C-alpha cells in the first residue's frame, strides 16, 4: 500500500530517533523516491539536527 505524506512525515521524524523496522524503511524509501515534498521535509529535519547540536558552540 502506498504511504501518505502524513505517515511518511511521522516515520521520518521517528527515524531520527531510532532505527525503523526494515519494511518501514523500504516503504519510506519508495515514498521518498516519488515525493519531493517529503524529501525536502527529510532534509529539513537533518538541518535542524545539525543546527541544534551546534547551538551555543
Amino acid at each position: 500500500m502506498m504511504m501518505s505524506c502524513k505517515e511518511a512525515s511521522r516515520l521520518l521524524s521517528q527515524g531520527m530517533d531510532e532505527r525503523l523496522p526494515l519494511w518501514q524503511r523500504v516503504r519510506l524509501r519508495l515514498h521518498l523516491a516519488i515525493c519531493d515534498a517529503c524529501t525536502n521535509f527529510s532534509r529539513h529535519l537533518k538541518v535542524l539536527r545539525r543546527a541544534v547540536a551546534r547551538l551555543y558552540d
Partner: protein
Amino acid sequence: MSFRADIEALRPYLLRYASLQLRNREAAEDAVQEALLAALAAESSFAGRSNLRTWLTGILKHKIVDAIRRSSRERPLEGAEGEASADDLEALFDETGHWRDTPQAWPEKALEDKQFLQALEKCLAMLPARTGQAFLMREHLGFDTGDICKELGITATHCWVLLYRARMALRECLEKGWLGR
C-alpha cells in the same frame, strides 16, 4: 583576571542557555548558580584543559538535566502536551494525507546563516515548554528516546509524538520567521 571573574563573566551566556532549556527563569538561575559553584570547587580539574565556556557548559548540562528531572516529577505534562496522539497535526495534511503546504527546499548553507540560527533560537523558545525540552534533550543534549521517556515520565509513543510535534512546529516557524513564507 582571576578564575572567579572569568567564570562570572560567562554567567549571562550560561543563563540564556539554561533558560532556553528550562523555560523558567528561577530554575535557570538556580542551575547556573549550582554550575558556577561546582566549577569554582573544581578549578584545579580545569587547569586550562579546554575552552572555559565549553567546560562550564558541560557542567551546566548536568545541572539542567537534574532540574528537568525534578520538575517533571513535580509537574506532569498538561494540556495538548499531555496528549500522546498526533491528532493535532492532522490539520497540516488534507483528507488524502498530502501536505497542505508543500515543504520547499531550504537555501543551501542554512547552517552558516546567522539569521537562520537567530530565528531557530526564537522558534525553540516558542515551543510549548515540555515539547521544547524533549526536543533539546534529544537534539542538543544527545539523549536517546528511552532516557527522555524516563526523565519526563512518559511512554515511548508519547515521546515520539512530542518530538514529531516539535519538528513540525519548528520548520513551520522557521519558514515564517527566516524565509518569510
